[in-house]
């Protein structure tokens, strides 16, 4: 930065401020409505989980029977929170990295409302008893074209920005985000047209569904998370990426391996024999792209241990990356065809794996990005260090509990099931109790996250030039530093970005 003249720095700062201003409403809309859906989804998750050990809880009401609440929980988590958080981060990061202001915030905002309407009608459709019965695609059939069209209306602008960007180096985050932007419609259209419009063999339909679930995790949520981490870790620490060739290896190995994964869920079902076993091999091989990305980012962060301790963005991102390593290890351990695959195939560990990927990896990194992006687009700082710390504490420990209990509880449940000499019994019950309690804790933390975020959207954040850090560094008078200097995103403060 020292070689750059002050004029260019000012221009840069102006450009960044312009980009942030152009995207303020879309980004805040997606994050806030996403956080609201997250709270709804977790509430539904608590209800669903409670019913697995106390089946008579709310049993009189058709809308709250387990078989409807659980799919509503998963679909709200994926399409309500996950996709919308990804939209917010993708449109902001792609604009910043392509150095282009957003030209269509109104269209994005309108499409975002349509998306929310689609998700709301879909969730109500499931609860009202019109679910399709295909996991993660339970929304009634009218919903998927609505979601697809609004998806294009939201993200096409980021693609155009990339096309017309000033020439130059394409950063690794852009690769991951562009990849995710292209993969999602491809897998979404494939699964929905094949299952809704071109009825084929019912068992192969179940296979496509299993492939869709895996592809959604590893070709959308995981790349968006990794791309965001590759932006945040060098940006916040101010150090270069630990190994850029490792980053490229991680991207292309993900692109090559992930599309083959997923059908191991159908091992033993009457589909062509190679499908489940290629799926199991590919899922185990996903260890390479996920672990290399996680290690590369963590090594980058470790270059600045002080920043790691004080920055909420980095702390959440680091937790998500550790989650990614756990995900990589469990992808291998759960899918060994000779030993663990038959045991875990029909157990809680499938749920544990999904929650680990969506919450323990993707959501934690999205929280990190939220703590980074929101002060920039609203030009206000986060209100309370304590709220952020609580959010971190409950989210991280909550995720560890849900994921570990479901993953390893699933192994024990499977071992019980496979002991065919014993009469059938439900071996999942004790783990279900733990999962309910933990979802309760996560719900608690996310209600506060939602309130904090809404206050920021209403521009009630602190007007200060000092970011809200987790570790108090100076100024004994105020925990957040001196008040007063409100022009923190304007010209002359380039170093703050």
């Amino acid at each position, binding site marked *: 930065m020292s070689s750059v003249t002050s004029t260019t720095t000012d221009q840069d700062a102006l450009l960044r401020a312009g980009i942030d201003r152009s995207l303020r409403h879309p980004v805040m809309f997606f994050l806030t409505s996403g956080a609201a859906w997250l709270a709804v989804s977790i509430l539904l998750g608590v209800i669903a989980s409670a019913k697995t050990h106390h089946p008579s809880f709310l049993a009189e009401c058709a809308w709250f029977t387990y078989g409807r609440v659980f799919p509503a929980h998963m679909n709200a988590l994926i399409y309500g929170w996950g996709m919308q958080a990804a939209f917010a981060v993708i449109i902001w990061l792609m604009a910043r990295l392509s150095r282009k202001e957003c030209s269509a915030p109104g269209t994005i905002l309108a499409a975002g409302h349509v998306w929310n309407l689609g998700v709301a009608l879909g969730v109500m459709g499931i609860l009202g008893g019109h679910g399709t019965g295909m996991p993660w695609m339970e929304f009634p059939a009218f919903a998927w074209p609505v979601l697809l069209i609004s998806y294009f209306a939201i993200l096409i602008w980021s693609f155009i920005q990339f096309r017309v960007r000033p020439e130059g180096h394409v950063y690794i985050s852009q690769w991951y985000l*562009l990849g995710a932007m292209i993969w999602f419609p491809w897998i979404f259209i494939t699964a929905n047209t094949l299952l809704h419009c071109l009825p084929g063999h019912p068992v192969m*339909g179940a296979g496509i569904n299993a492939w869709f679930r895996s592809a959604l995790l590893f070709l959308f949520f995981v790349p968006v998370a990794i791309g965001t981490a590759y932006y945040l870790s060098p940006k916040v620490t101010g150090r270069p990426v630990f190994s850029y060739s490792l980053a490229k290896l991680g991207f292309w190995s993900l692109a090559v391996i992930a599309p083959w994964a997923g059908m191991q869920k159908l091992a033993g*079902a009457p589909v062509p024999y190679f499908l489940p076993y290629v799926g199991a091999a590919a899922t185990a091989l996903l260890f390479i792209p996920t672990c290399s990305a996680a290690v590369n980012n963590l090594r980058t962060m470790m270059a600045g241990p002080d920043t790691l301790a004080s920055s909420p963005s980095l702390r959440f991102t680091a937790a998500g990356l550790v989650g990614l390593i756990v995900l990589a290890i469990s992808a291998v351990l759960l899918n060994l065809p000779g030993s663990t695959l038959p045991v875990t195939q029909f157990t809680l560990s499938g749920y544990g794996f999904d929650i680990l990927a969506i919450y323990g990896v993707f959501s934690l990194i999205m929280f990190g990005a939220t703590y980074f992006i929101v002060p920039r687009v609203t030009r206000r700082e986060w209100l309370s260090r304590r709220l952020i710390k609580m959010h971190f504490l409950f989210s991280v420990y909550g995720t560890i509990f849900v994921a570990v209990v479901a993953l390893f509880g699933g192994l024990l449940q499977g071992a019980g099931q496979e002991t065919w000499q014993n009469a059938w019994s439900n071996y999942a019950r004790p783990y279900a109790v733990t999962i309910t309690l933990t979802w309760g804790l996560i719900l608690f933390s996310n209600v506060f996250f939602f309130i904090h975020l809404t206050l920021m959207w209403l521009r009630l954040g602190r007007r200060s030039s000092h970011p809200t850090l987790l570790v108090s560094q100076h100024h004994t008078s105020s925990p957040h530093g001196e008040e007063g200097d409100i022009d923190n995103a304007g010209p002359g403060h380039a170093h703050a970005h």
Partner: protein
Amino acid sequence: MSLRTFILGLTASFGAAWLAMVVVPYFKMRDLAPIADPAAKSATPIFYPKRTGRVADGAKVYAENGCYLCHTQVVRPTYAGNDLYRPDWGGLKNDADRGDTRRETNAFDFIGENFAQIGTNRMGPDLSNLARRVETEYAVGSDPAAWLYVRLYNPTANPKLWNSTCPPHPFLFEKREVKGNPSKSALPVDVGAGFEVVPGSDARALVSYLLSLKKDHPVPAALDFAPKKKAGDS
């Protein structure tokens, strides 16, 4: 790297798997070749399990109410799990007429369904041969449909299932005032004098579907992966 190269790279890496894992197998299996069954007594000697009547509606109720979240419908071959060893999952170990009828699930077992409810978790038992179990074990000497109605209305009402985690489904039933003679299909539950509980149309459809779950009919030689040993073989 230009956008063009990037997109070509993505298309190649994704497209290969997309074709090999999804599109080609899907369209191949769409036209599953019929399998000859010389033993079949029908006019066309091919293997084709029947699935007709209210069963299709019941499959929809099964999907809408999320039965697939806790129950699977697949009996895996022995290389992929221990399902076949259970005495009553893949068929019956000691069927009165046919002896050991246990076999793994095959692709023809799902013909006529929209989506095979293979399932994701086993918080309840596999249902591939539920109807067979209800008829020969649970509801011996009584009406299998009536047994299933009570089971769906309140699973834990049956003392043998006191620790069942299956949710009750009272919303599939109708509670109404008794006018004249009580209904023949009224459930044996006490809901106050002058009232009775009868299955609604969804409950009837679901029970028809559940009673159709018998995936143990004899298979032609081409599909029989564990042929019976002849007397004398050891």
